[in-house]
């Protein structure tokens, strides 16, 4: 087997795949954050907890109701998204017009409550969740073994990201979202129910987090703190991409996953910090992020 820069192709490809999978999660999660930030101007610190809720919802659906992975992939985002709608309608909406810091504190508190409740109830260790039977096994590509489930995660994430991008950039509803991000008061004066639009945007962003959670369940364990570790990196990704940019959050998410994977090959010790280093460099050179509107 050939080497590239002294690294076996198999190792390189393996890490690239892991990077792509992590990047898929970063992309879906930072996309949800971008949608939410666009309309609500709130950094949704509960995003990691909502991702965890998605995974737990899948676990409950399977173990308590006998609903399989495919059902959960649809139902869990709907359930958690509905929870998000309630949060927006009864808590976040009250913060409209006050300093953004309050939204941040509220969602941060919410994350602590959710994660604390789940740790208290289920313990900090994880629950296993099996990949669906259709996606067990994999294919030998010659230079590496590709598990079907991992290929599916990348494909499903890309599909959802692309779908969301099309929805926002190419539809009338998306035009409302863009306009609502730019000048919600004027949009409302034109007769668009902007409070409802904001609720939908939050619910959708939360549903995206839950969708990522369901995708993650068979790869990582379903555990109360699965989101709190991930979300810190996702926030760094969001800062790198530029807060609120839709395409930027998707591309940056994927790219940062790959960068992380490659760092693991060439300089393993740095792989946990490389994204934060990139973040620091971007903050110095382009404070609004790679895709953000520079002020």
């Amino acid at each position, binding site marked *: 087997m050939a080497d590239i820069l002294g690294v076996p192709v198999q190792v390189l490809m393996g890490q690239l795949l892991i990077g792509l999978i992590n990047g898929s999660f970063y992309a879906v999660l930072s996309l949800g954050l971008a949608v939410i930030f666009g309309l609500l101007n709130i950094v949704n610190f509960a995003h990691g907890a909502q991702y965890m809720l998605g995974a737990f919802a899948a676990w409950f659906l399977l173990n308590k109701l006998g609903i399989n992975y495919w059902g959960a992939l649809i139902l869990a985002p709907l359930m958690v998204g509905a929870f998000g709608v309630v949060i927006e309608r009864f808590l976040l909406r009250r913060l409209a017009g006050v300093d953004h810091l309050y939204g941040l504190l509220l969602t941060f508190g919410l994350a602590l409550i959710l994660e604390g409740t789940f740790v208290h109830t289920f313990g900090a260790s994880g629950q296993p969740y099996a990949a669906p039977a259709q996606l067990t096994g994999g294919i030998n590509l010659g230079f590496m073994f590709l598990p079907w489930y991992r290929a599916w995660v990348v494909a499903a994430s890309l599909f959802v990201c692309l779908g969301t991008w099309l929805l926002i950039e190419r539809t009338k509803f998306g035009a409302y979202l863009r306009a609502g991000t730019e000048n919600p008061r004027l949009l409302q004066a*034109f*007769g*668009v129910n902007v409070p409802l639009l904001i609720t939908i945007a939050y619910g959708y962003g939360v549903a995206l987090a839950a969708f990522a959670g369901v995708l993650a369940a068979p790869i990582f364990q379903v555990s109360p703190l699965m989101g709190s570790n991930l979300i810190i990196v996702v926030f760094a990704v969001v800062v790198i991409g530029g807060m609120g940019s839709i395409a930027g959050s998707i591309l940056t998410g994927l790219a940062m996953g790959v960068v992380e994977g490659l760092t693991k090959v060439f300089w393993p010790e740095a792989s946990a910090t490389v994204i934060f280093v990139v973040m620091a460099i971007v903050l110095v050179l382009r404070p609004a992020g790679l895709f953000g509107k520079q002020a």
Partner: protein
Amino acid sequence: MTVPPIVSDVDRSVEELRIADLHGFYGESHVLHGIDLSVNRGELVTLLGRNGSGRTTTLRAIMGLLRQRTGSIMLKGRDVIKMQPHKIAHLGVGFCPEERGIFSSLNVEENLLLPPVVASGGMSLDEIYEMFPNLAERRTSQGTRLSGGEQQMLAMARILRTGADVLLLDEITEGLAPVIVQRLADVLTLLKSRGYTIVLVEQNFRFAAPLADRHYVLEHGHVVATVRSDELESKAHVFDEYLSV
């Protein structure tokens, strides 16, 4: 421009807008001090006044964009003072803001199609493009890439599509070249002939005078004078007193 169908069956005795004792506030500062005015269907009235006299604030209060307001604003027979802005628009009122409010994340056509249709009888996209050929040419450009005049055309055009027949227009001629100002005068004449009800905030008295049925002169958040178009000469002193700088 095609010859407009003259709408002769507009019932000009219907009161489309009546504002009574309107007070408006920005935080602690009290900027409207009991505005009273009324506009009948098919009329074009102006709000004139110096900078800061409260004209924009009056329009914003009607649209519900100014939250802190008291008094009564009857729009098509409904009191809108407690209504949410998006519901107000659906009574059939279109707003062209002072800052134009073209969305930079939308192209020209998306900007044009953005405001929801609030009543039947709005202009079709074809009709609008015929009226504003520049917009047709630039339909795929980013909204804010347009020239100032084109952005103003776009801000006007997008509310004509919605079927709104009460239009609140804030300083639509500001900073525009004379040919474009003339073009807007033609557009307003056309709209008037079609029976639209128009409240026009203007600095440019020479633009407004031949179009308007009545002028309300504002000063420090009060209506200090009302001048009908047939009183322009007899009350010329009003304009000297309140509009000259």
